[in-house]
Structures are given as C-alpha cells and as structure tokens.
C-alpha cells in the first residue's frame, strides 16, 4: 500500500478549473518537487490535501485512509504537516510557544484537566515542554526559545516553521516555497537542512519551489503543473529537457 496517494484530484473555484485530474503516489521516503508558473494551482493542491478546501472530485489518501471531509487539524493528526508560502508563524508568541501549540493535534488532556491542573495535565505539559525544547535543540534554535517569533530574522523564522511542522511527527511534510525570500547563502543552508531532516526524521517530503537551483539540486522527481494540469513528470534532467515545460515558463516561439 502506498504511503500517500492522490487520485483524480479536481477542483473548481466557481467556474474556474484550478486543478484538473491530478495524480500522485508516494511509496514513502521520496523527495519530490511540484513546480509550475505562478497561478498554476500548486498551493491549491496543498490546500486541498490539508483540508483547507474540499476537492470537487477525486480522493486523497494517506496510509490507505481517505481524507475526504476531514478538518485541517484532523488531517494534521493523520500525519501531514506543512509550512506556508508566506511564513505563518504566530508572531506575538514566543518561539517555544509556537512549537508547544502545535502539540494540540493530539492532546492527552481536556478542558477540566487544565482548569484543575490534574496530574494528567501536568505530565502532558511537562512532556510537551520537553519535546518542544528537544526540537529547538535539534534545529539549532535553542537560544531563541524565549524570543517572540516576529523578532527572528527571516531565515530563522523559516526554520522555526519547519520545526513546528516536525513536532507533529509527520509522515509527509509539505513545504510551500521554502526558499522564498532567501539569499544565496540561506538557500544553500536550506538545501542542507531539508536533506538532513529528511534523513533524521525519516520523512517523505513534497515541496513547491520556484527556485530552480533548489528544486534541481534537491528533488529526485519533479511534477510540473500549468493551468491546473500536469504537463510533465520525471527526474530533474528529464524536466530540464522537456519542451512543454520550457514553453509553460517562457512561452512559445511564434513561427
């Protein structure tokens, strides 16, 4: 059984076909890229997977279980975590709290436990605190734990966002343009980081990326989207030589 499967995913926004018959299978352990010109429907696909939108047709399965009709937080609990194109940390919360709150996906205590600070509450909170600090330690963010998220430099905010996603112990990690807004040095570091977390956490990673240097360097397979349709898929070399992809990005030559 494949780890993750999308079959015939189609989505309309009103009369606009944003995604059309999208298919994808991950056996587990892949690092795959999703590219395409602006407005091709890449982020829409991520949103469909996460439960932000519900697809018009088609199905998304993780570990054989259908995600249809689930709320985003339920999808998260199934083992899909993501980062966002524009960083979406909780800016006025500390880095540590950003990480802690992500533990809400499976909380072992309820409202009354919190009100009475029961034993169950205290053990759970201690566990969360410890895990949050561990993740920060692993990601090299230990010194920033008490800092407000908004005060961190851009590159570190990305890192915190990835750390927050890792807390969920995802099987599948979706990265939406992780290198957006980074300079060359930061991009190099990011490539290293993604390779490292993939090995460390045994992840399957699916990423949207505009920066060809990052995609071609990182991904083993690439799928290209244009106007919601898959126009090519293959290894980075195959994609680079694909005429339709070049046309989608640069336009057709007029004879």
């Amino acid at each position, binding site marked *: 059984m494949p780890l993750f499967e999308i079959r015939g995913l189609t989505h309309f926004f009103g009369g606009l076909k944003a995604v059309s018959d999208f298919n994808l299978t991950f056996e587990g352990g892949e690092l795959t890229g999703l590219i395409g010109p602006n407005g091709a429907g890449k982020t829409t696909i991520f949103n469909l997977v996460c439960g932000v939108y519900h697809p018009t047709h088609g199905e998304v399965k993780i570990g054989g279980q259908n995600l249809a009709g689930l709320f985003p*937080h339920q999808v998260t609990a199934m083992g899909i975590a993501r980062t*966002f194109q524009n960083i979406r940390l909780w800016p006025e919360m500390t880095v540590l709290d950003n990480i802690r709150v992500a*533990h*809400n*996906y499976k909380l072992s205590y309820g409202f009354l436990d919190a009100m009475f600070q029961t034993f169950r509450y205290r053990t759970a909170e201690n566990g969360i605190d410890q895990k949050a600090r561990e993740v920060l330690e692993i990601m090299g963010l230990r010194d920033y734990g008490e800092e407000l998220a908004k005060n961190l430099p851009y590159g570190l905010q990305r890192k915190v966002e990835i750390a927050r996603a890792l807390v969920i112990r995802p099987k599948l990690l979706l990265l939406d343009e992780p290198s957006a807004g980074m300079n060359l040095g930061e991009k190099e570091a990011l490539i290293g980081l993604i390779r490292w977390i993939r090995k460390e956490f045994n992840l399957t990673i699916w990423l949207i990326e505009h920066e060809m240097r990052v995609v071609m360097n990182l991904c083993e397979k690439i799928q290209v989207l244009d106007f919601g349709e898959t126009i090519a898929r293959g290894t980075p070399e195959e994609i680079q030589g694909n005429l339709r992809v070049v046309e989608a990005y640069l336009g057709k030559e007029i004879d």
Partner: protein
Amino acid sequence: MKQYSLTLLAALFFALAVGLSWAGALSSYSQLVLMFVAVNIMMSSSLNLINGYMGEFSCGHAGFMAVGAYITSLLTVWFFTTGSVFGPNLLPPAWATVLFPFILLFGGLIAALVGLLVAIPSFRTRGDYLAIITLAVNYIVKSAIENIQPIGGARGFMGMGRVVNGMQEVVDIPWMMIWTWIFAFLTILLIKRFVSSTYGKGIIAIREDEIAAEIMGVNTRRAKMIAFMLSSGLAGMAGGLFAHILGYINPGSFTIMKSTEALVMVYLGGMGSLSGSVLSAVLFTLMLEVLRPLQLYKWVVVPLILVLLMLFRTEGLLGHRELTDVFPRLKRFFGSREKVHAAV
C-alpha cells in the same frame, strides 16, 4: 516560596476586606464599591479572554451577565423566600448559605450555554460580523427578559435581598463580600490556567493566525466554543453576584452600556493582559465613583478618557504584557514560571 506570594497577597487582601466589613469599619457604601470592583474584575478579565487573547470583538458581554443574574436570582428567590411570584419557599432559607455558590455556578453554566449563540456563528464569521452577532445576542437577551412578564419584565425582579438577609441570619458575616471576592479570584485563576495551558494557547494562535492554527493541529471550533463558553459563563457568575449585591435587577442594567463598560475596562487595561484587566477594573470602578459628583457629565469624561487612551496608548495600560513584564522588579516578589520576552 515566590510563586505563592501572589496567593498570599490575595489572601491578605481578602481577609482585610472581609474582616473590616464584618467589624463595621467599612461603610456600607465602601463595601458596595469594593464588591463592584470584584464583579468588574470578573467582567473585564472574562471579556479579555475573547477580545484580548482570542482577538475577536465581542461587544455583548452584558447579555451573558443578564442571563446569569436572572437565573441565579430566580433560583434563590424561588428556593429560599416566600413571595408572590413563586409562592412559599421550597427549602429552608438557611440552606442558602451552602447552596448559594452552587446556584451561582449553575447560573454561569446556563450563561455559558447562551454563549453558544455566539460561539457557533464564530466558526464561520469573524471580526466586524461577529461583533454584530454579539451585539444582537445582547439585545435578544435583554428584550426576551423585558417580555417575560411573570418575572417582572421591564420592571425588574427583586427578592434577592431577603435571600442574603436569610444567609446573614444564620451566620452574621458579610456573605456577599466573601462570595464576590472568592469568585473574582477564581475567575483570575481559571483564566490564568486556561491561557497558560497548551490547550488554551490555541486561542492565542487563533488570534495570531487562524488558518495556521487550524492547519497546525488546533481544533479551532472546539477552542472557540470553549473560550466563548468560559467567558460567558464567568460573566454569568458575575451577573449572579451583581444581582445579589444590589438585591434588585432589571433588564435596563444589562444594556449595551454595561457591555461598553466591560469593553472600556479591557481596552484600558490592555488586551491579552490579565493583570491589566484586574488593574483597570479597579481603576475604572473607583474612577466612576470619584466622578459621581459630576453626575451626567461623568459620561462625557469617561468616554473622553477612552478617546485619549486610544490616541496616545492604543495598546492600553499594559498591552499584551503582564505587570511583571512592565516592572521586572516585581518578579523578585511575585515569581511566575513564565519568562519575560526579551526584546531584540
């Protein structure tokens, strides 16, 4: 030791307030003001949960107060007094001493259920639209009470004074002073516990970025429901206490004006600051009393203060910070496990 100093201070204050009232050292007017301070602390800190911590704009807080006030008053009067509305008392009046806090909790519970009227629309709506819904709920509650004639309608409802007197006949201590401050401290404690738990921090994440909160595993619907119910439940209990302090309530006490007072206190103290809410409830209640000689002009001066506040200090006295963040030296005396956020 340090983390108990705040509890100790609260206990000292409580003992002093109750002791002085009991000994007759405080005039009944000062006692009344002191009790209103407690009720206002409950109102402002419970509203802060929604407007400050969750970042919604609820402007119908008095509606929940009204529900709690009426439910508890009806129950105590029905149970413990003989009157024209409910006939002879069901239970011996002396039992009120023991049952009063439970009736208060029950009133809070019903107010929490009415809070669902706001919580459920909040799943799909936010900001201005939700504000209008909260306003509507305030009016619905007020108009509903006005039109239920058996409980007095617009004329109001009374008899709670006899309940309190009945309690005092059993043991002559300042019962209402005791209960208002116990419940005020309880409110502070519960809200503090809620917003410092990972569970409750979910609502802060909703304020900061709702979509990210939902995608990163926060059950936003449940979080909103819990927050609205906790907030309106506490307001309901504040209402129950308010009714028993005054001995008389009418729907006119729970208009948008009352909601506005709660809003003013939240914004004066600072959104998302619990100590700010407490501080501003104290300041605001005292200010209203000090300005009482101005009579009608009070309602010119108070809003003017709010206008000035919004112009010169938008974030309130302590916006998003606690007293210990503003005056770090307090930490030496009042320990807290939360650390200060060092600014870069």
